[in-house]
């Protein structure tokens, strides 16, 4: 896409990232770069370390190696400091606050009450009539797709410059998958960089500027969606079941 700024300092630069679960060596030297305004899809089979990459960047799994966000080292920083630098994270478990209303969930996403930046609550609710209709109901009663929308919108309320979205379409009906794709496209249009951890090629190829494929704890392929489409060998070896 045209708004990607490749000639400037990358938004996120991951170098030789390693991570362990106990003795199991899950990430074995991951390298990746995301430019300002760029949408990057991280593909791969289950269990190759895509979610762990997201968790290691966010500090939820202790990372070894270099993680630079806007040129600043973020490994070892507490999660609220990372968030305040402008890095948003939507984990795969759709961690909404079930006892709170939809609106309260969105309020909790705001980091600076004086200036919510690119997004505001009313605009979010207008985008999703389903959420608007239930703005003052407990979020616990929402459907899976609505919960997914809410978690993404909630993170947007903090006005991130890069948002990491982990498996947003898992277990959702095709129609909802389409809506999640539309939302991610809207985020990209607003100039926010996106790291999308996905399994569905359709949604990834529709909005991504760059594709990474992961296998056995490292990046095994990097290219544009167009180039990737021609590489049936890569798809066969690392993606198809």
């Amino acid at each position, binding site marked *: 896409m045209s708004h990607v700024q490749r000639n400037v300092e990358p938004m996120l630069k991951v170098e030789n990232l390693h991570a362990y679960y106990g003795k199991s060596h899950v990430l074995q030297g991951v390298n990746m770069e995301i430019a300002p305004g760029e949408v990057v899809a991280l593909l791969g089979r289950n269990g190759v370390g895509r979610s762990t990459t997201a968790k290691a960047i*966010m500090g939820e799994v202790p990372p070894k190696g270099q993680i630079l966000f806007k040129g600043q080292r973020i490994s070892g920083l507490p999660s*609220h400091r990372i968030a305040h630098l402008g890095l948003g994270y939507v984990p795969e478990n759709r961690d909404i*606050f079930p006892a709170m209303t939809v609106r309260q969930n969105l*309020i909790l996403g705001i980091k600076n009450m004086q200036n919510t930046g690119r997004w505001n609550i009313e605009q979010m609710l207008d985008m999703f009539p389903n959420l608007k209709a239930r703005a003052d109901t407990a979020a616990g009663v929402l459907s899976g797709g609505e919960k997914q929308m809410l978690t993404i919108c909630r993170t947007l309320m903090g006005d991130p410059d890069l948002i990491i979205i982990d498996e947003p379409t898992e277990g959702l009906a095709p129609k909802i998958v389409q809506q999640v794709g539309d939302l991610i496209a809207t985020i990209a249009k607003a100039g926010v960089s996106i790291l999308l951890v996905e399994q569905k090629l359709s949604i990834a190829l529709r909005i991504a500027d760059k594709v990474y494929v992961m296998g056995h704890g490292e990046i095994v392929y990097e290219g544009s969606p167009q180039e990737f489409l021609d590489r049936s060998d890569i798809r066969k070896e690392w993606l198809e079941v």
Partner: protein
Amino acid sequence: METIVFSLLNGMIYGLLLFMLSSGLTLIFSMMGILNFAHASFYMLGAYFAYTIMGVTNFWLALFLAPVLAGGVGMLVERWGLRRVHVNGHVAELLFTFGLAYLIDEVVRIIWGRNAVNYKVPEALDFTLFTLYGSNYPAYRIFILFVAVFMLVSLWYLLKRTRIGLIIQAALTHPHMVGHLGHNVPLVFMSVFGAGCALAGLAGVIGGNYFITDPAMAVQMGPIVFVVVVVGGLGSLEGAFLAAMLIGILQTSAVSINASFSDIFGFLGLTASSELGRITVAQLAPTLPFLLLVLVLIARPRGLMGEREV
């Protein structure tokens, strides 16, 4: 009638004091996942701090400063103690708070002595407010009632009506996610622990001179506060309130009933001179909270309003 009115009033006051202690304990439970054995020690610290501050200045300053000091000690305990122990799991945390309770007990004995201190109701509040059915009712009890209700309304407002309250509630259940949204969860935890200790301290300030301020007050109050939290349902503020009022009124009412078993069960042939017949309802009062605990755990393991199993 006289007995009922006074029992209800005194029971409510005792219940509100219990709630002041148990509200902090139940919030801290939601946060750490364990019951803080040392919680009643902060109640004791509040009373002793107030006694010392009152000796130097006056009661009103003590009313403000003693809870702040107790809360400050609580924050230090969380920041430099519990937070480090937390990584080693619940058993270590539990043992830590157990040790802390004894430590505070001993320190209090060293500083203030083994006997009760003369922590008195301030002169400005030491008068009869009204006379009902020929009995005088002390103004200080109504003062306790006001302080407790004011605290309760403030706490409810903070938790349910402010953004900070939302952050606290969300951090108690989803600490990781709240951190990723940019809120300083360790600071929230330290503040909640400190505020819980400050509430316990406040209960000590206004309860220490109503009851008695001695080194045994924490040990006496601790188990009852535990009962309140478990009966109400672990982690539930509403439940803690209900249980505190229930236990407060139940226990206070029982104390004022002088009837013995022989009076009640006389028709069964129980006489006043027999071992069982001699027991009065008032004597049974201290057992009531624990009886309630046992019964609730059998019939409703989650407590009155709790969401998780004990």
